[in-house]
């Protein structure tokens, strides 16, 4: 099933099984079903529980918090991740704060989901990966959909967490088929973290120790199948850990990363946004063994241009990743 359909399906199931689940967002009603059609069909099935709003992102966030506080489970869609900037005050000074500042006496169970990422030529304000600016807000889970994650489990676990969860969906993943079972080139394994999300381990070898560890999350996973296959040709054994919960980093993720890092001695950390002050900086920081060679790669830290070729050059891509791997192996 395509990832967009996976998300659509889990939203349907959540709504069917839990009467308090409410969808809220802009243009999410049928027949349109949202700018990326993720909510298609849902307003027809649950007309009272799919709330299309004016263009008021801050209030979409705030209303979700208020509904969560009063016993509902809102799932908010922000049409493009670029607009999550407008929700920052509600997320940081309200959603994350109410429970701890009221000494744990309330909960704010909700999801905000939003598509991030470029590659579609939408230009500077519709192509960004802004999650890095929200990492490290305490009391909020930030989770990313990837090509290899059981999407359904991500949403159901978010639901069980009874707290605000931001789910990052790279828009390039939507039309792709989820890839969750091993084939004869790529071996996939899931690792449950203590917060109930999963990290996914994918390898291009069976036995033997790996040569290099790739740590990443979200949309960058779209490159991995091809890269792992190409690295078989180069006789490079690659293990890749795709983190589900990207902030806060779980203890299990930390130990998983360290285990493979120690086996490989070489770690390449990849992220879709620019790496400066990004996710990869913190991941680098959690690697304990100082003998390990670490590289980070993200998109170029500049404007994301509309021009197609330029955009490709600015964004992280397969070629850059492969070159980085080869360089690291050759050291």
């Amino acid at each position, binding site marked *: 099933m395509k990832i967009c359909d996976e998300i659509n399906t889990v939203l349907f199931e959540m709504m069917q099984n839990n009467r308090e689940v409410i969808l809220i967002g802009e243009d999410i009603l049928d027949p349109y079903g949202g700018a990326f059609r993720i909510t298609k069909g849902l307003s027809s099935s649950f007309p009272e529980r799919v709330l299309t709003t004016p263009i008021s992102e801050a*209030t979409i966030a705030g209303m979700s918090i208020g509904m969560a506080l009063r016993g509902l489970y809102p799932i908010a869609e922000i049409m493009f991740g670029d607009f999550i900037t407008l929700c920052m005050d509600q997320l940081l000074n309200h959603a994350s704060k109410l429970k701890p500042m009221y000494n744990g006496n309330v909960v704010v169970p909700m999801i905000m989901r939003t598509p991030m990422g470029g590659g579609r030529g939408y230009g500077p304000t519709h192509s960004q990966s802004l999650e890095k600016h929200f990492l490290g807000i305490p009391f909020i889970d930030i989770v990313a959909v990837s090509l290899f994650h059981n999407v359904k489990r991500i949403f159901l676990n978010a639901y069980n967490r009874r707290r605000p969860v931001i789910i990052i969906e790279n828009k390039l993943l939507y039309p792709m088929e989820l890839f969750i079972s091993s084939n004869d080139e790529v071996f996939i394994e899931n690792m449950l973290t203590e917060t109930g999300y999963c990290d996914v381990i994918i390898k291009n070898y069976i036995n033997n120790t790996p040569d290099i560890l790739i740590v990443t999350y979200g949309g960058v996973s779209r490159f991995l199948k091809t890269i792992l296959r190409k690295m078989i040709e180069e006789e490079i054994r690659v293990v890749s850990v795709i983190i589900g919960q990207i902030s806060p980093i779980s203890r299990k993720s930390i130990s998983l990363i360290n285990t493979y890092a120690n086996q490989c001695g070489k770690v390449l950390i990849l992220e879709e946004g620019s790496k400066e002050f990004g996710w990869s900086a913190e991941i680098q920081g959690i690697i304990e063994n100082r003998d390990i060679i670490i590289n980070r790669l993200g998109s170029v830290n500049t404007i994301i241009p509309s021009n197609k070729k330029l955009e490709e050059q600015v964004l992280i891509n397969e070629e850059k990743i492969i070159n980085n791997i080869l360089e690291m192996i050759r050291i």
Partner: protein
Amino acid sequence: MMKKEKVEKIYSLMLLIRRTEEKLLELFSRGLLNGTVHTCIGQEACAVGVMEVIDKEIDIIFSNHRAHGHFLAYSEDVYGLLAEVIGKKSGLCGGIGGSQHLHKKNFYTNGIQGGMVPIALGAAKAEKFKGSNAIVIVFLGDGTMGQGVVYESLNIASLWSLPLLFILEDNHYAQTTPKKLAHAGSFCQRAKAFDIQTEHIKVDDVLKLINVADNAVRYVRENKKPFFLHMETYRFSPHSKGDDYRNAEEIAKFKLEDPLIKLEKELSKEKVKEISENIDNMLLSILNSINNDNEMSLEELLILNN
């Protein structure tokens, strides 16, 4: 309730708020309080008048940085409030929230101006969705009418017919900024433009205010529609502590219309004295008791992170 009893009750509550806040200012000036407090001295009628007519079992209140009065009128939990502001574990929020971040039952505040308005809107949507008979009340100051989310929320409250009562507690100033330096046009018109019914009242007589508030609350509950109540009031105390640059004559003029004093005139001297002494004694004994309470430990705080 008979008129006289009601007057006594209302007066007691208003005086309780005033004395409690005067005590806080005193503790502050003696260096016994940390942080900051925003008192509502002079505005007590707004809090008491509204809380008198809501259904405290089910209704939901969102307030702001200047919430002590709203809170006491809602709950009369002097102990919880004082312990919270003083920073004890026995406080409403364990001393974590402090003066600006209060919660108990259906009462919530936060220190970001305007930020609670869309949250109140969501709460109103939730109550309507659940089919409850509750209404939601959100307090906001004149200054807070500068925040864009307020208008986003007015629009949706009206569009979706939500049981949300906006109470604009207009004390003519935002911190040091007089209304005329911050606002064009009319507050009520701003709500009306979203097709929301409004009413304006000058708060000098709490009994009159109770009637108006009662009508507003009924309207919201019965019609499941928002209402915008503009209360013109005045604070006698500074914005927080020493930050008062208002004209002394202006303050004096407003003090002549103090709703507390006005109400006092309806009671006998003896009754007033009795009420006042009871409150003072209660405050003293509460403060004594709070003195012995523990503070939260870091370990306890960090449990919240799980």
